[in-house]
């Protein structure tokens, strides 16, 4: 956690809480992006999100009707739960920087 030069304060127990709903919206950078696929991504392109078991077990972003772009590694517990409840999500490409893809995840 170092990298910023700040002292650490301590608080007893508890953990980060949040509303227990599926109106999940956040920005994130895709993990393990497929270089061949991200080359062709357009600005503001909308990607599908799906909960998968292969090739990895998690939540991944796909080109609509096309190949996998990369994986989501944030808010993964809530996303998996909400997808299992029948909610659908999309990811809008915000910007690309070299091999990185920044997206906004939101309900479809």
């Amino acid at each position, binding site marked *: 956690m170092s990298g910023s030069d700040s002292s650490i304060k301590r608080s007893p127990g508890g953990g980060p809480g949040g509303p227990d709903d599926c109106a999940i919206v956040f920005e994130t*950078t895709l993990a393990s992006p497929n270089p061949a696929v991200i080359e062709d991504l357009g600005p503001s392109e909308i990607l599908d999100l799906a909960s998968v078991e292969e090739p*990895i077990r998690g939540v991944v972003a796909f080109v609509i009707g096309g190949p996998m772009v990369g994986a989501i590694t944030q808010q993964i517990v809530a996303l998996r739960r909400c997808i299992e409840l029948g909610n659908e999500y999309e990811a809008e490409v915000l910007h690309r920087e070299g091999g990185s893809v920044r997206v906004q995840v939101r309900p479809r």
Partner: protein
Amino acid sequence: MKIVGGTYTESVVEPGSEEIMGSGLRAAAALAPHLNDLSLITAIDSDMAEPVTWIANALGVHRVVLERSEPVGFRYMTPVSSPLINGIGATLEDDIIVEDSTALLFGLVERHLGERKVDAPTIVLDPQKPRDTEQLQLSDLTYDRLVVVANRSETMQLGRESLSVSEAARSLLYSSQASAIVTKQGAAGCLVTWRDGSHVRQETVGAHPTRRVWPIGSGDVFSAGFSFALSEGAHFVEAARVGSRSAAHWVSTQQPDVPASILRGESTGGVLNPRKAQVYLAGPFFTTGERWLIETVRDTLNSLGVSAWSPVHEVGHGDDIAEADLDGLRNSDAVLALLDHSDAGTIFEVGWAVARDIPVVGFGRVVEKEGMKMLGGSAVELHRDLATACYRAAWAGMGMRTIAGWLT
């Protein structure tokens, strides 16, 4: 390579962010695509087991998972705030036995009650203990060379009663009998201190300014890039350059893995050599929220390697403060302006600085759109992201050219 480090929840209030990461998982994710034999030894609690499996698989991280007694999480108000730690009483009873050619060891939040034994020709130790710093625990480590990677306050505390970072690093080199000490200094890059025969040498490696900065985890990625380069035979200074470029890539993109080109040592250009700089902190300080922000930003600028000049701290409240404040402004190398609600005094100071070619970086989330046109259309670099604004102001003080208009 083996990495020993934490897996923790990390949440930020503003901007909202929540993820499962931690120093160990982050460092492992940074290097996983590039090392077939990389393994992370980390502890988790039972609540985290399934999500950690998903995340680690998505990141390609091979791991050995130990059990800790309770959840541990870091909660930040902003990415430049000190975190609150939940689960500080967590314990880990399993033994940690590591043998490899290179080991990267991060300090853990969990109290380790088992046995630790690390045997590696190269050990990189990142203690992660900015407060309550005990002596470094080295007796259970077997190595040919030890490198301690610590931030500025850790180095000052471990270097006991030293007057400067340079002196503290030398003191720590002697007391730990390490081969090298790398002191991370935020926006000011890092200081490498190493033994060269009977001499001790020091060299500064500059930071790489980026257009956006997410600082949480930057130190972890630095240590990962540094350790990788060291394991590939790089000298301490060259390895620190790889660490610095790796950290810059992380803060700019939040891409979990470091690109191969950076780990290979390819230059990314744009190094800023640090120098002493004073940054004037322009902003209102009349409400509790405003004063909170001033305190947070002042602490941040001071921790980034520049000297913050804050009117309320240097001059105070009162009626006859204008000339004293302008004296501070006149002698500053850059300005960080807090622009929410367009406080008249702050806007005046921005204009005064721009007229004298003092670079200005502004931060605001609730600003008058029409009013910002003069600022952004002339010379002021504007940000909606607080961490980025702080870093950019520090870099501007050190000589980076600002970019007029909204960057974040």
